[in-house]
């Protein structure tokens, strides 16, 4: 087993197969921690990637934190290996910078000697005056009341030279020894701590006003060289977090909250200058006053994203900047998100498989960032509303809601939404069956603005179900109301054909799915693996390798039938209504 994984990893690293993207950092890190022989191959690779990117380094560090907590004894060899890796990553960013700056200046001097470029020699002249050692007496990292909580004291961008270069459109390199990782680390720490504080408060009102106050204080420290790691594929700096747009989300004993961050896209996370802080001009303060939204109304889930973005942009002092964007994230603490991460990886993998096999099934995996074993960031799915909200607010059946939203049954809008609905329902039905996703109440099922059904909350998968009631015994959740939207025999038939094709395609690529689960399971204490090796075996059994395609069709028919007629689904919805008030 080990040698096989070893082979896989070197192959992946050197070549990057078509599934390269889904291998994911988490899988690599997990292998790194639990398999010593793999670690030796992967460490140099990771370090090399880390040396190039601050964002990558931080992600590695967080994952190392999250995944190494399962190792019981700290004296364990693997543990020391992973902590050594972490130290090396951090060391990389204090050492490499000074080294790089030296090599850079010598390089440019060489170049200068050869080509006698006047402007070059001028820059170097200035550079010699810049103190090469970083010193910041009033360093207040992490103290959000200071207004400089995310300021590592780097002057490279504010110096004469830095400004000149920026004006000329040249890239500035940070050459001082300011700790490059610290601002972002502090920023994330502050976000998590806020969630922890909120959890200790009792009433929702208290939580909401505390969140508002905390974010207002936090804003004094922005803009800063901090970003949402969920969206680091679009490098950006956060300039402001409008406090009144944020909201505490419903949860019993924890306090996840959603923030909307105003960001400005930059070329490079570390080597781009910061936007100057907008002074609260008259225009700005007036627009703030004009906002009559109470925080409650402000967080309107059904408000289309584009509208929200336009509204916030208009009232923002940074809104005029062309590369201004709005990005949202859910901050959660008190929950282990590693299982969500596993689900997200599996969903991404399944979607890839179906794309390759040309099966039109639609999943919507969302990004997860584990910051430790009990905190993290979640990408909110935009423009969605949960089935629970539909039922509560509109009090009509799902089909009637579709007609309201998308138009008459024969209109193009309705037909397109219906097709999306069938394709996504089939996809998630397969996922629910294969991964044994439980806790499927209507609060965990969303509907997108285009009619896609989207499942969220993968806290109960594989061998785990909530409170171990064993309540939901049906293969997946398929209510009559959902079937009603299918509209008739033909789309219902299409639904079953899609499920069959999807299962056949998934079965063809079963190895990839199993190996991902196996790697993430190794040495893991995650509750979804509490049945141990049997978890993987059971998963494998659900692919039914021994059945012919005709037999699979019979199986799908049976699964769909028993799901529709499942009493337990109805019971579970009733149970959720009585215990959590979810319709």
């Amino acid at each position, binding site marked *: 087993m080990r040698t096989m994984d070893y082979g896989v990893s070197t192959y*992946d*690293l050197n070549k*990057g197969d078509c599934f*390269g*993207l889904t*291998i*994911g*950092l988490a899988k*690599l890190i997990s292998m790194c921690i639990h398999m010593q022989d793999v670690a030796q191959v992967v460490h140099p690779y990771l370090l090399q*990637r880390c040396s190039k990117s601050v964002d*990558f380094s931080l*992600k590695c560090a967080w994952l190392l934190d999250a995944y190494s907590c399962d190792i019981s004894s700290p004296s364990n060899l693997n543990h020391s290996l992973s902590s050594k890796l972490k130290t090396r990553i951090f060391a990389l960013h204090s050492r490499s910078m000074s080294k790089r700056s030296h090599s850079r200046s010598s390089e440019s001097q060489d170049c200068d000697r050869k080509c006698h470029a006047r402007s070059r020699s001028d820059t170097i002249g200035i550079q010699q005056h810049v103190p090469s050692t970083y010193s910041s007496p009033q360093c207040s990292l992490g103290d959000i009341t200071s207004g400089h909580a995310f300021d590592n004291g780097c002057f490279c961008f504010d110096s004469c030279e830095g400004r000149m270069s920026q004006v000329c459109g040249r890239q500035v390199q940070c050459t001082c020894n300011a700790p490059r990782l610290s601002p972002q680390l502090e920023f994330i720490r502050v976000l998590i701590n806020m969630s922890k504080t909120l959890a200790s408060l009792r009433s929702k009102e208290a939580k909401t006003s505390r969140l508002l106050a905390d974010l207002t204080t936090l804003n004094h420290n922005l803009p800063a060289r901090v970003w949402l790691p969920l969206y680091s*594929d679009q490098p950006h700096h956060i300039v402001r977090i409008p406090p009144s747009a944020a909201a505490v989300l419903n949860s019993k004993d924890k306090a996840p909250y959603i923030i909307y961050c105003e960001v400005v896209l930059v070329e490079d996370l570390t080597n781009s200058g910061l936007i100057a802080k907008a002074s609260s001009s008259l225009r700005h303060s007036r627009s703030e006053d004009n906002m009559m939204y109470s925080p409650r109304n402000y967080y309107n889930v059904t408000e289309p994203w584009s509208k929200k973005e336009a509204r916030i942009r208009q009232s923002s002092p940074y809104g005029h900047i062309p590369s201004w964007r709005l990005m949202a994230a859910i901050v959660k603490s008190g929950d282990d998100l590693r299982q969500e991460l596993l689900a997200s990886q599996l969903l991404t993998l399944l979607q890839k498989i179906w794309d390759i096999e*040309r099966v*039109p099934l639609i999943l919507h995996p969302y990004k997860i960032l584990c910051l430790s074993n009990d905190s993290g960031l979640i990408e909110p799915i935009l423009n969605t509303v949960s089935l629970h909200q539909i039922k509560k607010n509109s009090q009509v059946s799902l089909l009637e809601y579709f007609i309201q939203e998308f138009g008459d049954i*024969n209109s*193009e809008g309705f*037909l*397109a939404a*219906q*097709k999306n609905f069938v394709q996504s329902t089939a996809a998630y039905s397969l996922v629910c069956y294969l991964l044994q996703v439980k806790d499927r109440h209507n609060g965990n099922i969303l509907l997108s603005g285009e009619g896609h059904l989207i499942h969220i909350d993968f806290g109960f998968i594989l061998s785990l179900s909530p409170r171990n009631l064993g309540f939901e015994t049906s293969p997946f959740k398929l209510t009559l109301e959902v079937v009603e939207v299918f*509209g*008739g025999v*033909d*789309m219902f*038939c*299409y639904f079953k*054909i*899609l499920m069959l*094709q999807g299962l056949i395609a998934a079965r063809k690529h079963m190895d990839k799915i199993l190996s991902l689960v196996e790697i993430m399971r190794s040495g893991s204490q995650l509750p979804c693996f509490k049945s141990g090796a049997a978890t993987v075996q059971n998963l494998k059994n659900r692919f039914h390798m021994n059945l012919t395609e005709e037999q699979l069709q019979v199986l799908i028919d049976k699964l769909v039938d028993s799901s529709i007629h499942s009493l337990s689904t109805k019971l579970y919805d009733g149970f959720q209504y009585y215990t959590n008030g979810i319709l």
Partner: protein
Amino acid sequence: MPEQSNDYRVVVFGAGGVGKSSLVLRFVKGTFRESYIPTIEDTYRQVISCNKNICTLQITDTTGSHQFPAMQRLSISKGHAFILVYSCTSRQSLEELRPIWEVIRETKGGANELASIPIMLVGNKCDETENREVSAAEGEAEAKMWGCHFMETSAKTNHNVKELFAELLNLEKNRNISLQLEKKGQLKGTRKLKEKCSVM
């Protein structure tokens, strides 16, 4: 009414087994397979030029062996151009096109609007001379009655396949569409780069 989007959508209809997928696959991938695998619905995309810009040609290969009226209505209402395929070896398959033609006519409105929509009646498998049931003249006459254009093809021998799609796009009078694409090399280059993403 389909909006003037950056997609140009062509929908292929016809009875089961007349060679819809074969035609599309021959055009898109240049391949042909003898075995018959019923299609549910499949969409292929290709970059073409439209009004001197690049746009996506989206070819929807529909099912001939299942009845999905809702999906049929949707693809008709979203489609910009249509290919109606029958097999020269089966008169039945030509007759089965008539109801589809009716739905297109109903969905796309009056005779004037219909005339501006590129529709091609296609007799496929024209290489199978021994089993022929429908002559080219008969096909032509049928097309005239329906007010659409006509062509005989063979996906197997690659006869008239590229011509079919070129001619269909040529019929579109609202935009200037063609299969030719300048800067083809460049596009390919950027695509390759994208595929080389690493671990993240």
